[in-house]
């Protein structure tokens, strides 16, 4: 299933909204300034309504920001899958890897580990080498797109860490994968500027 990443435009929107919003929490509704008998109750209602709108808007922005950060984290750890006995990056895999690049660029402190895995068929020992090739393929794609190689570790788990058990293609295809783990710098993810 090939789809363009919608994360980037969402992040632009969220970034703009956050920038427009005050960083401090909204002020509480102001108390009536004087005890004069002629308090304008409609003006008080207006200012209360205004304050509530500002509070709602700030809360919504915080939610949007949290959601954008979650989307960024999700894109960083999204898995890619492989064909049987192959370590070539598929078109779907490329799209998923493409989505990681801007987030890695926006957060230079992040280090990731690529974990290469295989389905259970064939020699367990040969599968360690195949898993390493799958991890290296993803790393090479990311470094070809400008990410510093020192930020990416590779480890192969061969067929040792299946996510799906059993002997059917459904299980096999889920297991032929690279997983991506954030090993450092993953707190306070900055959403990408572009």
């Amino acid at each position, binding site marked *: 299933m090939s789809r363009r990443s919608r994360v980037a435009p969402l992040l632009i929107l969220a970034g703009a909204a956050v920038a427009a919003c005050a960083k401090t929490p909204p002020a509480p509704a102001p108390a009536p300034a004087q005890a004069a008998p002629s308090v304008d109750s409609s003006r008080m209602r207006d200012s209360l309504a205004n304050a509530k709108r500002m509070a709602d808007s700030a809360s919504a922005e915080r939610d949007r920001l949290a959601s954008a950060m979650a989307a960024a984290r999700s894109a960083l750890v999204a898995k890619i899958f492989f064909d049987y*006995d192959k370590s070539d990056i598929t078109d779907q895999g490329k799209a998923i890897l493409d989505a990681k690049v801007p987030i890695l660029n926006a957060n230079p402190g992040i280090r990731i*580990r690529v974990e290469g895995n295989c389905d259970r068929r*064939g*020699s*367990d*020992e*040969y599968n*360690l*080498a*195949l898993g*390493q*090739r799958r991890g*290296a393929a993803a*790393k*090479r794609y990311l470094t070809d797109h400008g990410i510093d190689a020192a930020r990416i*570790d*590779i*480890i*192969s*788990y061969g067929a*040792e860490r299946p996510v799906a058990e059993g002997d059917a293609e459904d299980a096999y295809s889920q297991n032929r994968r690279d997983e991506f783990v954030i090993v450092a710098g993953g707190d306070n993810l900055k959403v990408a500027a572009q």
Partner: protein
Amino acid sequence: MMAGLALVAMAIAAAIPAAAQDTSRTGVHIGLNYQPGTKPGVIVLPIVGVGGDTAHAMIQRDLDYADAMNVISDIGPGLDGVTVNYALVQKLGAAAVVQALLTPSSLHVIVHDVGKRRVLMTRDYSLPATVGAADWRMVIHDAADWIQQAITGSRGVAATRIAFIRDGQIYITDTDGADTRPVTQKGGGPLSPQWHPTGRFLTYSFFAPRGTQIAVVDLTSGGARALTATPTGLNSTPTFSPDGNSIVYTHGEENGTDLYLVPAFGSDPARRITVGHGTDNTQPTFSPDGRRLAFTSGRSGHPEVYITNVDGTEPDLLTPFQFGDDIYRASPNWSPDGRLVAFESRVNGRFQIETIALRDRSVKQLTSDGINEDPKWAPDSRHLVFTSNRTGVRQLFILDSESGRTRQLTFGGPARLSAWSRSLGSP
């Protein structure tokens, strides 16, 4: 008790014609006469002494597992452990009779040549104190191997151990399945254990935070040390050289995998062997003279078995070339006598154990039931231990490559990635 045993010993001694009291020496062997191409019938007499029943059962089982003798176990009440009635045992079909006497500290074994109606060989073993303990059992196995050599000319493999992976740990087991126990702590996900020729060490790979590493564990102390200096990369499938001084293993980072050699106990840096140009080259196995390696390589586009000199020169495809898809040969293991390489080969979608002869490249398929992988030779170059899923869960099986007879070695939790030690007894 001692007086009773002494009497029995005297009775046995009295039954042996003095002139035929041979003691075997290495290199001197007097063969038993039996029809070539048949298996000699063997009777193991009841064994006198504490632990005698256990020793008797073990020796009988070991001789049966050798697949080279016909063990006659149903011998009726007419035979005791003290005197050998040659006429009677001959009628029962025996060509050889085994007689043994246990004391708390020794085992005395006598092998009789039934046809010649005399003692063929005798041997004495010191026995550790505790009946049934691991070291006691190993002496009994050692005796069985010697008995087999006396009768058939070929030494048995009962006095060996098999290492394997179960439940994220390295286990070792005796060839009769006894004394199965882990030798590593949980954690680290060890794989691919291989024996040092002395049987004292195992090398294996384990998962570390930033890569897979090679380690060596000393079985006498339990202490393990990591061999590989690099914290990153894939380091896997280590194997000791036949002289025990080196380890060859697979190493890869971002451009395929190659074989490297490193001192097993020194600090010299690793030296590269294969030049795979980004392909995978893994699963090394030494020729018995230590000068060549067979290994698995994906350089042709799919895994095949190759041979190279240990200096990396003259890499050559071993497994016969076949056109078409679905070719996958891996997990080679060179027989200790140098004649054959066993490997796993995908046949009609399932892996089977095959052997290829170095001399004429003839191939023989040894299994057909289920998926069968990862063959490892016994020191006799005849038996193999391998992993099979034929019972529904992966377990280790032992196969006699001559007769095809197969027996299950492990039971319980799934077992795989085995390795067969050299003889742990005394020659």
